């Protein structure tokens, strides 16, 4: 037994210490005066004092800022809490320390790390416990202890080949259901029966691995059973009439509409891990958006961290070099005071901080700019946050091979396999409750971006050297899904005994099903295996030969000589019974609303400081949005870099010889969805398109992605809403002539039977023909004209002002019948240089949008916005009608804009050199009589409301 040495290193002015004091105060725990944060390293090995001294000096201690203690911690009268990763949880720091010791030529060392917090102040046991649980440690992935923790050292070993048989034959229905529930299989009775029948025909019972393989492959998460189901929708309209329709597969319907539009630049839609469109004559773009909601609810950092990791691997899975990330986050309101939360639910602020840190950590370390997204705050997300993660990739046209051949080796590259992530797919295919955290512990993981970075380099070079016939990522279901999907038409033979493991004791089914991160699977012809191995060694990436694709049509998995799985591919992929489901939706019946008596100027400032509108700098500046040197349209714009950007514009490295650029944007509005999910879809598409057009993208070159996050689809109201939203997507694709190229659904976003508001995210990918003509939302020059494109609406349903003031209008603004005309006109004006700034009108309405342009440019404005039907001043200022854009343009171009826009747009004002934002409300014609005094707010006040800080800074 080796000696364990404890080394504690404290930085003298660690900013984390102050942050903890601040966050403890926000928790409502009083008495903490200061905090000392230390890094703790436990070393096991035959190390001399000189060895330890050398290791400390070389890698553990910075002589300028660190103090070190070797051995027992210094006694203190204050409570000390130590937090360490649980056994099996990724600990990159420990691994790098072991490698550093080896690099120094020291004797072999096992390392384990912890963080130590000395809580200085007057705290009782309860307070220390609250701080530990609610702030310092997450018990799902971390251990915490008063004093020092018991360090754990993983030991290298191979798995134990124990395969168990699960008795299915003769089980009654109730027993089948119980087996599914207790085994976390998330299979329903019909599916369990289909499995029982299959093995009855085979004349045996399944192994644990076979049952698990079927459960993962057939999970909602992997198979999208709801999106393949036959659905009967009963739609009650607001006049009481009922329309009944039937759907033979939602996914197929989306595919059909894409095939209908079939633009020549479309390369791949829905077939691959990501959608692919042409960029220029040489390169294609791949885009994918995923969700990682369930894990992020339990372990926000790890959940979001691996969410980014997973979607980036999706893009690698179509042979693309990842070049950018996006994310859209939906959280409960971050109330400053602690609040009543259901047991088992993390505080929304903790969820937010963890998710944001997790996203930044992964994207930043991969060297990918995080360029676009949104943050939505709503009560509906308190127990179920939504974390949408997107990735964009670039690949030479036609360079992605997709046909594995019989005889190809099955090669895994990247991270090692552990128990982490087991049951991730099935866990995401059920609702959550208080007990979920305990059951799902292993489903949540921490990422290791540097291992994935190595895989990115390997995959790109392997692609260029044509070393593989097919590639896919190890996502939900791990090897089981990756090999099962890639070998669907061939069959495969796998030996798990050679799979490199993180630690001992994994059973074969666990190796097979583990969703450990940072792994890719490739089909490699035997003749290229050594070339791939050399490439992997060059980049320090581990590579394993798992077996071969066969041509037998069977999936045969063993662990050495022990059989583990033997399933026909046909049954695995097509044996799941098609579901028959029922959805119901009733449109709300409009009721007369009463507008509150409010000061419009006050409302405008309140909207600007509303968390959904206000600047997201505190979040977004922790993401690197500049790496790769191609970010043109940024998250923040204007003279001080604090105005809101509408969409991202990117110039990919390697494509600098021409002027075309890529644009990305999103549209999301769950508030509309509560009232009318069909309209939500059209509004979300419109918002995404407005955002793209506003930065200079061509509306004729836009591809869309859908991401549906809903509750339990077996409940007809949830499903009804989902189907209505999908019908909206179909209609939107046709009206906008924009194909869906990829999509994903995340269902069962429920906690203790309460569902999230059905939330559709639309992500859009477009092209900016000339990057020099890309514009931002910030005013550029006093004296410019301000134009408004599009008409207002007197319906406030789903608007932010409705939510803010509790107006309860149930009528949502109408959707656009012919949207493209205006977007084509605006695009032409931007492309010919007539527009110096453009901004989309969305959350908060036109007054907020005008104020945002003024904030970005630090310029004043005088404008007169049109009345909205029967609504008053407040409605005119804050309605969120579809299809509206604000344009800044030089007066010299006035006639040109008037001619191009015709009745689609009107000149509403002028950018001024003053320091005030003045918005009047007038009639529909221009120039128009002013309706009362203009609403006037000080530019500085607007900046303060929007940014939360002084205007001078």
């Amino acid at each position, binding site marked *: 037994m080796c000696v364990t040495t404890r080394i504690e290193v404290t930085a003298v*002015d*660690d*900013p*984390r210490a*102050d*942050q903890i004091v601040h966050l403890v105060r926000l928790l409502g725990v009083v008495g903490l005066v200061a905090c000392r944060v230390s890094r703790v390293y436990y070393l096991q090995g035959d190390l001399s004092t000189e060895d330890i001294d050398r290791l400390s000096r*070389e*890698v*553990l201690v*910075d*002589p*300028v*800022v660190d103090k070190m203690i070797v051995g027992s911690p210094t006694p203190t009268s204050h409570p000390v809490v130590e937090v360490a990763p649980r056994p099996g949880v990724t600990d*990159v*720091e420990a*691994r*790098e*320390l072991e*490698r*550093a010791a080896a*690099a*120094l030529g020291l004797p072999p060392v096992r390392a384990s790390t912890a963080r130590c917090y000395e809580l200085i102040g007057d705290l009782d046991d309860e307070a220390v416990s609250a701080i530990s649980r609610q702030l310092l440690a997450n018990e799902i992935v971390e251990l915490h202890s008063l004093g020092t923790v018991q360090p754990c050292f993983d030991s290298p070993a191979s798995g134990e080949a124990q395969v168990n048989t699960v008795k299915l034959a003769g089980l009654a229905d109730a027993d089948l259901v119980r087996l599914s529930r207790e085994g976390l299989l998330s299979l329903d009775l019909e599916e369990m029966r289909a499995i029982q029948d299959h093995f009855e025909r085979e004349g045996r019972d399944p192994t644990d691995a076979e049952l698990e393989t079927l459960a993962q492959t057939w999970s909602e998460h992997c198979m999208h059973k709801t999106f393949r189901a036959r659905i009967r929708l009963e739609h009650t309209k607001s006049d009481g009439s009922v329309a009944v329709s039937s759907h033979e597969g939602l996914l197929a319907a989306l595919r059909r509409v894409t095939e209908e539009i079939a633009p020549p630049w479309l390369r791949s839609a829905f077939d691959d891990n990501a959608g692919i469109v042409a960029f220029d004559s040489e390169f294609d773009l791949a885009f994918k958006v995923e969700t990682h909601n369930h894990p992020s609810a339990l372990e926000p950092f790890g959940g979001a961290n691996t969410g980014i990791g997973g979607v980036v691997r999706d893009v690698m899975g179509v042979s693309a070099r990842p070049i950018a990330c996006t994310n859209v986050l939906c959280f409960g309101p971050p109330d400053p005071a602690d609040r009543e939360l259901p047991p088992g639910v993390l505080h929304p602020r903790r969820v937010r901080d963890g998710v944001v840190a997790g996203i*930044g950590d992964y994207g*930043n*370390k*991969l*060297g990918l700019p995080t360029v676009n997204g949104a943050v939505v705050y709503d009560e509906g997300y308190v127990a179920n946050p939504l974390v949408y993660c997107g990735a964009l990739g670039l690949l030479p046209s036609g360079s992605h091979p997709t046909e594995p051949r019989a005889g190809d080796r099955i090669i895994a590259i990247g991270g090692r396999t552990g128990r982490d992530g087991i049951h991730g797919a099935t866990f995401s295919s059920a609702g959550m409750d208080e007990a979920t955290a305990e059951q799902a512990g292993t489903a949540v993981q921490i990422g*290791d*971006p*540097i291992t994935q*970075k*190595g895989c990115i380099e390997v995959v790109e070079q392997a692609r260029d050297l044509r070393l593989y016939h097919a590639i896919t990522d190890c996502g939900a279901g791990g090897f089981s899904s990756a090999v099962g999907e890639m070998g669907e038409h061939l069959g495969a033979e796998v030996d798990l005994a050679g799979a490199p493991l993180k630690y001992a004791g994994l059973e074969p089914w666990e190796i097979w099903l583990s969703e450990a991160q940072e792994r890719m699977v490739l089909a490699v012809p035997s003749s290229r295996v050594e070339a791939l191995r050399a490439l992997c*060694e*060059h*980049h*320090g990436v581990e590579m394993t030969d798992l077996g071969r694709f066969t041509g037998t049509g069977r999936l045969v998995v063993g662990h050495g000589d022990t059989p583990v799985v033997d399933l026909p591919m046909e049954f695995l992929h097509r044996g799941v019974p098609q579901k028959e489901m029922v959805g119901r939706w009733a449109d709300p019946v409009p009721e007369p609303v009463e507008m509150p008596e409010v000061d419009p100027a006050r409302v405008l400032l309140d909207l600007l400081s509303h968390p959904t509108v206000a600047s997201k700098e505190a979040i977004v*500046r*922790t*993401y*690197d*949005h*500049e*790496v*790769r*040197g*191609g*970010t*043109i349209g*940024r998250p923040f*714009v*204007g*003279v*001080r*870099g604090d105005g809101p950007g509408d969409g991202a514009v990117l*110039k990919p*490295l390697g494509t600098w010889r021409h002027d075309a650029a890529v644009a990305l944007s999103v549209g999301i509005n769950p508030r509309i969805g509560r009232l009318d999910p069909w309209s939500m879809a059209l509004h979300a598409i419109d918002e995404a398109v407005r955002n793209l057009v506003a930065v200079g993208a061509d509306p004729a070159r836009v591809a869309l992605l859908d991401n549906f996050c809903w509750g339990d689809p077996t409940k007809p109201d949830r499903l009804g809403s989902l189907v209505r939203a999908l019908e909206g997507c179909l209609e939107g694709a046709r009206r906008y002539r924009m194909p869906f190229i990829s999509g994903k659904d995340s269902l069962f976003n429920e906690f203790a039977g309460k569902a999230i508001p059905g939330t559709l995210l639309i992500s859009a990918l477009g092209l900016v023909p000339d*990057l*020099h003509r890309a514009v931002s939302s*910030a005013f550029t020059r006093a004296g410019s004209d301000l134009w408004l494109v599009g008409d207002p609406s007197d319906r406030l349903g789903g608007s932010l002002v409705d939510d803010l003031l509790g107006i309860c209008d149930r009528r949502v603004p109408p959707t656009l019948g012919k949207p493209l005309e205006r977007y084509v006109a605006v695009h032409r004006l931007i492309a010919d240089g007539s527009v110096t700034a453009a901004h989309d009108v969305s959350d908060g309405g036109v007054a907020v949008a005008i104020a945002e342009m003024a904030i970005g440019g630090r310029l004043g404005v005088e404008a007169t916005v049109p009345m909205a039907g029967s609504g008053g001043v407040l409605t005119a200022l804050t309605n969120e009608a579809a299809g509206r854009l604000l344009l800044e343009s030089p007066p010299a171009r006035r006639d040109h804009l008037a001619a191009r826009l015709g009745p689609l747009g009107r000149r509403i004002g002028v950018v001024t050199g003053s320091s005030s934002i003045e918005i009047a409300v007038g009639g529909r014609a221009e120039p128009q009589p002013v309706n009362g005094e203009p609403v006037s707010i000080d530019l500085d006040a607007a900046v303060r409301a929007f940014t939360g800080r002084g205007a001078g*800074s």
Partner: protein
Amino acid sequence: MTPPPILILHAPGTNRDAEAAVAVELAGGDPRIVSMTDFRAGAASISDFAGLVLPGGFSYGDALGAGVRLALELRTWLFEELANAVRSGRPVLGICNGFQALLKSGLLGETSGPEGRRGVTLTDNANGRFECRWVTLRVEPVFGSGWLASLSGMKIRCPVAHGEGRVAVSDAQVIGILESERRIAFRYLSEDGRDGRDRLAGGLYPANPNGSVGDIAGLCDATGAVVGLMPHPEDHVVDWQRPGGPPGARGLPLFKAFVDAAR
């Protein structure tokens, strides 16, 4: 004129290598991205190159602190070769993670604090967060023979993107030593130069984005051959990369001076 071969050193987790290569190429150099693996295996040699760039990223995940593992690799495998290269006047430029590694490896010169230990370091940003934003730098008057000397007083606008970019010193005297040895190569300027005069950031966020002492954004060694800085001049080499504002203040002249010194 033959473009001089410039090494862009790649370690696992390096990620701004491609941009650095673009900058070097636009500046007239011949960038070659070569991995640490090749140096360890003896397949590449520092003497093959006329200049060396250590680009940004998270080498080895920065799991033991920014640049610490890479610094160890440099000391273990390349120290003598690098020291020779520096002695022969070949320019070395470390950006962000490359700066962190250079400083922590001792290649930027041992600035003695108490007991002869390194007296200057790069550590956590004062706000405790990763921070990405555009800043304005000024090239400070450095040692006369250094390749930066001709750029003295020039301004560069470019982004920072780092979590551990705060220059900290073991005691106040170290600043005096750095100043007297003319080793402060870059400082953060206030954005607020209304009267036309440069003004230092004065430690104030966000112009000084990380709380660096003396608004220091970059350092050089006593010879001026080895230069390191936290911000990313390689991300502003053409005009369209700039988020508005007046033209100029690009990072390209820095790379031109670097490549010229490598000739």
